[in-house]
């Protein structure tokens, strides 16, 4: 039997019970649709995150105490002296010690709780923040302990609306600060994090907290090989913190040191696994759809036992019957898969558009690869779940099949 005839027989077999075929296909539509939806949303999310992070230069390096990320660890392990020691390494520049200040910021009736960072001017270079109005922090601000503040774009907008913030006096806790600069907006999802902080001179921040000589965070840029410099920094800190860790076991350290490119790799891995995880969950519904296909194909084989007997009596070989039923299953899943891809893709597109209204600049990602993957999964489902019923059909004895009532 030639393949086009088999395909035609399979199609006729399906159209003889259109309602049932469509209902069975629905399981695959939902299964493939949710796989496409989840994978495309995951990819959209991943691309969005990575786009945002990629605004940082890859040779920016950050060190923080482990306690900032892991509950139960001492939150303060880094000191100003650590920063000074690191700054003496030959392959680093722009070493900035940072202190976080937890205070409310008020102006008139507006009250906000943005992140307040005590830092020096190099932090803006390291984080690629550009100035929109006024000026950045200067060495003079640090030396003189001046109560000046540079505002993130969003915080400036929240506090002052359309008014010019320059020269205005804001309260940070009990203390008054003069706004000397406003940063350019980064926009996007990272913007919500990067556009809100208020930057004040490190020396001033120090007097507002009781952290002593400890600092929360050290930012720097490497001038040579980032990985090698990272090793230098780690061994220097281990030496200073008296940590014996020759095997580079991150569990033994009391700090976390990583470059932004490393952070980006981690982020990429994390977002990819989220995508895969979502896809896997969605794959379960495809599995359920596949079982539906198998069930209905088994019913179909039983119902059409006589037909199978007849086909064998007029000369059908085992292979012909096997292929026909396998093709019926695959036709169902392929058809369902195509609808699922269009439906899931469209839904993902709509959801992305809706989400874009809230977090801005979000472009929908549905790659040809994920479309092919979904189609492959659909066909695979048909083959796997169609095989057993098709085998059963092909093994029927012609006479017993013909006599079946």
């Amino acid at each position, binding site marked *: *039997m*030639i393949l086009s*005839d088999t395909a035609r*027989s399979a199609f*006729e077999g399906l159209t*003889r019970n259109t309602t049932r075929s469509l209902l069975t296909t629905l399981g695959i539509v939902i299964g493939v649709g949710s796989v496409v939806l989840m994978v495309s949303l995951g990819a959209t999310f991943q691309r969005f995150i990575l786009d945002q992070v990629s605004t940082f230069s890859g040779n920016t390096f950050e060190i923080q105490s482990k306690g900032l990320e892991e509950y139960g660890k001492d939150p303060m392990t880094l000191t100003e002296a650590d920063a000074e020691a690191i700054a003496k390494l030959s392959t680093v520049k722009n070493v900035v010690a940072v202190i976080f200040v937890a205070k409310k910021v008020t102006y008139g009736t507006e009250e906000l709780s943005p992140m307040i960072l005590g830092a020096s001017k190099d932090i803006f270079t390291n984080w690629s923040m550009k100035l929109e109005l006024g000026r950045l922090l200067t060495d003079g601000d640090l030396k003189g302990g001046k109560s000046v503040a540079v505002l993130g774009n969003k915080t400036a907008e929240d506090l002052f609306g359309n008014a010019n913030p320059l020269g205005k006096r804001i309260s940070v806790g009990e203390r008054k600060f003069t706004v000397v600069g406003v940063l350019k907006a980064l926009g996007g999802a990272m913007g919500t994090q990067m556009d809100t902080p208020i930057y004040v001179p490190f020396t001033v921040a120090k007097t507002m907290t009781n952290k002593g000589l400890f600092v929360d965070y050290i930012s720097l840029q490497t001038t040579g090989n980032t990985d090698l410099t990272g090793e230098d920094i780690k061994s220097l800190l281990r030496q200073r913190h008296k940590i014996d860790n020759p095997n580079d076991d991150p569990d033994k350290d009391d700090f976390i040191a990583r470059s932004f490119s490393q952070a980006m790799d981690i982020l990429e891995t994390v977002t990819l696994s989220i995508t895969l995880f979502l896809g896997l969950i969605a794959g379960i519904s495809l599995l359920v759809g596949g079982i539906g296909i198998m069930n209905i194909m088994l019913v179909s084989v039983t119902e059409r036992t*006589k*037909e199978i*007997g*007849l*086909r*064998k*009596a*007029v*000369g*059908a*070989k*085992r*292979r*012909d019957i096997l292929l026909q039923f396998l093709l019926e299953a695959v036709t169902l899943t392929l058809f369902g898969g195509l609808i699922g891809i269009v439906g899931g893709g469209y839904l993902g597109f709509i959801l992305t558009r809706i989400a874009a209204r809230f977090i801005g600049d979000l472009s929908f990602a549905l790659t040809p690869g994920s479309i092919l993957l979904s189609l492959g999964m659909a066909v695979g489902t048909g083959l796997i779940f169609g095989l057993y019923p098709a085998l059963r059909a092909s093994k029927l004895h*012609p*006479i017993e099949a*013909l006599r079946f009532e």
Partner: protein
Amino acid sequence: MTSSKTTPLIETIGLNKSYVNDEVETPVLHDINLSISSGEFVAIMGPSGSGKSTLMHILGFLDVPTSGHYNFKGASTEEKSEDELARIRSASVSFVFQSFNLLPRTSVFDNVMLPLLYNSATRVSERKDRVMKAIESVGLTDRATYLSNQLSGGQQQRVAIARALVTTPEIIFADEPTGNLDSTSGTHVMEILQNLHRSGHTIILVTHEQMTAEHAERIIRLHDGHVISDDRAFTRRIAKRGGQIK
């Protein structure tokens, strides 16, 4: 009936068939020795349970004997695989069943086409002509596009005969072809089979009705799996008495 010198189309030597059910062996056919030549119209007769259907299934390559020999066109058919039997069925034999066995909700044309789908000897370009010719020979040309379930029983059986003809098989097996039909339709179907016989087809009819069997020129009677008579002179005897075959 003078073909004894040539190789018979069908020849069985000491053919036996038994079924095994729950380790109990039930013999169905005993020592069947038959020879049927090309162009014969043979009726296999017997009450139900006599083994006539089983014999037809074996002769039609739907089943295999437990022991004994079955030579088809002089060649042994023992130890053929299931697919090889399917190939022989496709090329050489066809069936007309009591319950028609048409594909439901499928046109007359597509029903008749069915055997050609599995017949690699027929070119795709020839198919349509052959199907229409087969439909024409049973007088259903104007019904070719009808669905099988829109036809009467008699018409359905004629479609089944057209389906049996379309591959120009060497033997047509008819298993109680009139069993589900009223007498008028039954007569019509038997006339078609007789016409096919006159135009040279080999027909093996399985029936339990004497009236139906009388259409054949040779009647083989089975009882409890044994051939109890093989009467070639039946038609002549009727003819001598001036009787007519209905």
